[in-house]
């Protein structure tokens, strides 16, 4: 009884402690039964702004020559002063609003001091004490769960990126590239709300998609525009959180999850011997997939934070916040819901569009007026409710994208305008061209980009369909009766150019020829062998190079045979 009481008391104490930290109930994980893993993540996302955070120098891509985009301020020359780039503030505001944060009407900048070759001024300007935004949330959907995990965001702050310093152990020299020095960063800090490496991975991917959607960062981990520091602790279920260790500078989701797993195992090993984990800062070795100690808590540097005396208080007006709010692009979750509900697309198709859209280039300074992304393209295809969204999706995602992929191109290389594809779909829907012709036309248009309308191109290419009732305009003697390669699927083989004469031939002429060419089959058909019909259709299709509508061909044959019988 006493034991139970003690356990119970301990449990209540833990519950109380837990309530302070987390809103989540512990969940058993078969990989580490009896233990709970607690993870918090600090993400550094490079702002996709044209200019740096405090100087007029341009931001740099990874391929630029070193030390080309550097101002006197970035190199910390004496007499230089920072000048806050309002575009960076707006991008950070967008992100904060998208993360449901409380925007701080007044925030300020601090200097964080340390001596290192990647920091020319000897300090980094950051927002340690009064960040731009606080207390947000990000809903993270996991594949094996219907309800999302709500991750609380502690704060979002603006800060400077450092220079890139590469140390050569052979020559014992450091190479310093100041291109990155002073680029704007958002530091996004979560509360310790994540409970597994998978959740951590899903959080980073969700955040990545959100940053890209609002246009604040391209979130490219390979290129270093998104980096994560992860705090991991392990405790026995029911007990307070364990001692956390921080793994620094993880630059891929895969490495991050591997680092967390390794760190969990390391903690479990220590806890199994009934000793305690000591607070450390660690690095991750991408070759061995292991974490290694950088420094212990005792060696933690004193950054001597000081309010920056030049930048003062950043005061945000209500108007500015609401103007950013009103121009906030649609967030990934909203887009998803909208595609599902207003177009009736399947989850799978929505996934295709979302994935396609996430690979679009993020424009600088959040300027969304540039070229439309895939989802905007799709929205415009479906505009006005004229086109069936599912058909539009097929044309865009299967035909257009398929052709682009075959050409080893991505959607960004697409030269076909929304109007052109819309018209193409309409022409098919209105039976003015056949599906087969349309596929050929699409390929032709990709090879020969033009601003002409689809109809004009189709007419030039003589791909307009035969009209079944159209009277013959000549006797058809000029029609070449052979010389066409037997074509399989028209969309994968090339079609030689046509002459003007043949386009004038009506469907009835072609059908007449087909009947004349296959007298035996005509007899069979008359005898009721319906299967022969396909032979005629195939013949007409081949001769017309796909321009004929199979149903119309069938109708025409039946009409002619009836006439014959009559």
């Amino acid at each position, binding site marked *: 009884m006493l034991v139970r009481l003690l356990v119970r008391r301990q449990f209540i104490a833990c519950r109380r402690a837990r309530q302070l930290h987390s809103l989540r109930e512990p969940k058993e994980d078969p990989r580490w039964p009896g233990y709970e893993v607690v993870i918090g993540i600090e993400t550094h996302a490079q702002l996709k702004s044209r200019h740096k955070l405090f100087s007029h120098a341009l931001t740099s891509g990874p391929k630029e020559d070193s030390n080309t985009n550097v101002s*006197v301020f970035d*190199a*910390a*020359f*004496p*007499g*230089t*002063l*920072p*000048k*806050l780039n309002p575009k960076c503030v707006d991008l950070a505001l967008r992100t904060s609003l998208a993360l449901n944060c409380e925007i701080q009407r007044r925030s300020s900048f601090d*200097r964080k*001091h340390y*001596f*290192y*070759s990647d920091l*020319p*001024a*000897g*300090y980094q300007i950051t927002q340690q004490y009064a960040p731009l935004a606080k207390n947000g949330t990000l809903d993270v959907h996991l594949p094996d769960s219907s309800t999302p995990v709500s991750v609380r965001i502690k704060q979002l702050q603006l800060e400077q990126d450092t220079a890139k310093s590469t*140390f050569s152990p052979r020559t*014992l*020299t450091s190479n*310093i590239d100041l291109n990155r020095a002073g680029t704007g960063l958002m530091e996004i800090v979560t509360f310790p709300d994540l409970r597994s490496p998978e959740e951590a991975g899903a959080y980073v991917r969700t955040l990545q998609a959100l940053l890209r959607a609002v246009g604040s960062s391209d979130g490219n981990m390979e290129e270093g525009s998104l980096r994560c520091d992860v705090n991991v602790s392990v405790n026995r279920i029911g007990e307070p959180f364990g001692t956390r260790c921080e793994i620094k500078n993880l630059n891929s989701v895969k490495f991050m999850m591997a680092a967390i797993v390794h760190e969990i195992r390391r903690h479990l090993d220590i806890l199994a011997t009934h000793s305690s984990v000591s607070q450390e800062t660690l690095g991750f070795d991408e070759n061995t997939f292991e974490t290694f100690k950088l420094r212990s808590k005792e060696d933690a540097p*004193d950054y*001597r*934070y*000081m309010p920056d*005396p*030049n*930048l*003062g208080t950043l005061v945000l007006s209500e108007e500015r916040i609401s103007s950013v709010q009103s121009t906030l692009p649609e967030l990934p979750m909203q887009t998803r819901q909208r595609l599902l509900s207003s177009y009736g697309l399947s989850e799978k198709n929505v996934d295709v569009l979302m994935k396609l859209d996430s690979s679009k280039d993020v424009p600088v300074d959040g300027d969304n007026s540039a070229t439309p992304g895939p989802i905007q393209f799709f929205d415009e295809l479906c505009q006005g409710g004229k086109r069936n969204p599912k058909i539009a999706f097929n044309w865009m995602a299967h035909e257009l994208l398929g052709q682009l992929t075959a050409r080893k191109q991505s959607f960004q290389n697409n030269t076909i305008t929304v109007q052109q594809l819309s018209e193409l779909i309409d022409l098919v829907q209105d039976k003015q061209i056949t599906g087969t012709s349309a596929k050929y036309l699409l390929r032709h248009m990709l090879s020969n980009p033009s601003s002409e309308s689809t109809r004009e191109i189709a007419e030039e290419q003589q791909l307009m369909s035969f009209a079944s009732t159209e009277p013959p305009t000549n006797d058809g003697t000029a029609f070449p009766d052979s010389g066409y390669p037997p074509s399989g699927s028209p969309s994968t083989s090339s079609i030689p150019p046509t002459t003007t004469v043949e386009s004038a031939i009506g469907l009835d002429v072609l059908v007449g020829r087909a009947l004349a060419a296959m007298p035996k089959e005509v007899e069979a058909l008359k005898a009721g062998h319906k299967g022969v019909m396909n032979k005629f259709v195939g013949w007409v299709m081949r001769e017309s190079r796909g321009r004929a509508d199979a149903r119309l061909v069938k109708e025409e044959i039946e009409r002619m045979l009836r006439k014959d019988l009559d």
Partner: protein
Amino acid sequence: MRGNTTASLRRLLSSPSSHCTRCYSTRQTVIEQNAKINAFVHINPEPDHSVSRAGALSGLKVAVKDNIATTDSPTTCSSSILKTFVSPFEATVVQKLREDGADIVGKTNCDEFGMGSLNIYSIHGPTVNPFPLTPNAGPSAEFEQRSAGGSSGGSAAAVAMGLCDAALGTDTGGSIRLPASYCGVVGFKPSYGLVSRWGVVSYADSLDCVGVLGTDVAAVKRVFDRISSFDAKDPTSTVLEIRKAASDYAKQRLQSFNQSNPLNGLKIGIPQEFFPTELSNAVLNRFRTTLRTLKSHGAQLIPVTLPSSSYALSAYYVLASAEASSNMARYDGIQYGERKTPSLQTDLRSVSSVYSQSRSAHFGPEVQRRILLGTYALTADAFDNYFLQAQRVRQLVKDDFDAVFSIPNVRGDTKVKVDETELDNSSYGVDILLHPSAIGSAPALSSGTLSNSSLDAYVQDLLTVPASLAGLPALNVPCPAAVDMVAGDDGWPIGCSIIGQWGSDELVLGVGKAMSFL
């Protein structure tokens, strides 16, 4: 040569509006005269008069303190670490001077990075106070080597010696007013935020002000009017509407003055905390004489109290040193500046062990002292007790000033508009404050106590730091020599300082001008 110079100087000083360009018109004479006082550390070649620009400052000879960036001469800040440094860009103030046609004579000596009150911490050697060489010293004055004051000692000495019409200086805690007082010239620290700091090498950003030294208030005002303007490159530069709001108050007060006797009815506050025990009798006596003269011209003398001023010096040294430790962090010998090749035993993988060698070798003793003090004040353990506490004191000092001035502080959070009734309501406040600029006259350079006992040197700033902490305009004008010299008065220059509300720079200069005609 000497006789001629003295004679022309005498002629010059007899008329306050004249300029010294007539006497030292050539660079050669500047070079010769400068050798006696070490005011200039770099002298520019004679400008090409055929291409000299017409402008508001056309022909005016201006010296520039060596912590202000120029592209045509080194900007050493009197530091070994920048002894060969030439800035790739020009300070906004220098650009403005050039655009207005001023002749930039050269760069002037100062304490290293502006840290010092006596201009003795300079890689170029100390600036010598030129007072004995000037006619004011009288024929019997022997050439005694005294400090020109600091940190803008070179600028003050160059003006006093007549080597230029005006000089730019910087003032963080008194660095213009103190040397102006010691050298007997006019020195003006404008309101914080009026003059651009782009290109001015930071010592303590929240306190640093660019200001002007000159032989008379007119010369100072002429330069100040040109360099006081909004600069987008300086985030602390005050925007136009706030400048205008403040200057409207000052103008309104100036217009209410009796034009024939501007001092009549002027409300002068005398802050009681500005008369500490360290104040010499000579200063006190001359200041009293000045007050008597002012009173006889109808000025109203009002004793006021600024209770927090007693803590101002301590707060100043914590804040200035903290900011200095931060601003000095960039001098590591990597991107620019002097670098000491690491010794063979150095662990090259450790950045700090490489940096520390350059920093130890090339920072002077006072800079090192303030870096250490400031670094300590910013450590996690000391931050609350030192830095935050000093910031609180700074706010109290500001509040004290706001409480005594009749003109409101337009930089407050609430938007203030010029309002006739408001001015009437605050008629109990004072227009300006007046206090001695320094606790004594210029200390001797030979005195061993100067360099050994740094704390004594810090006391030099006792009276000037409150205005710096509050960012207020402050003008040093020389006190006229007393008719009845008291014991202890060595006859060397002593100045008094006029402090005005933030942005009332025109009022301060106006009062200064009126006082110089007494």
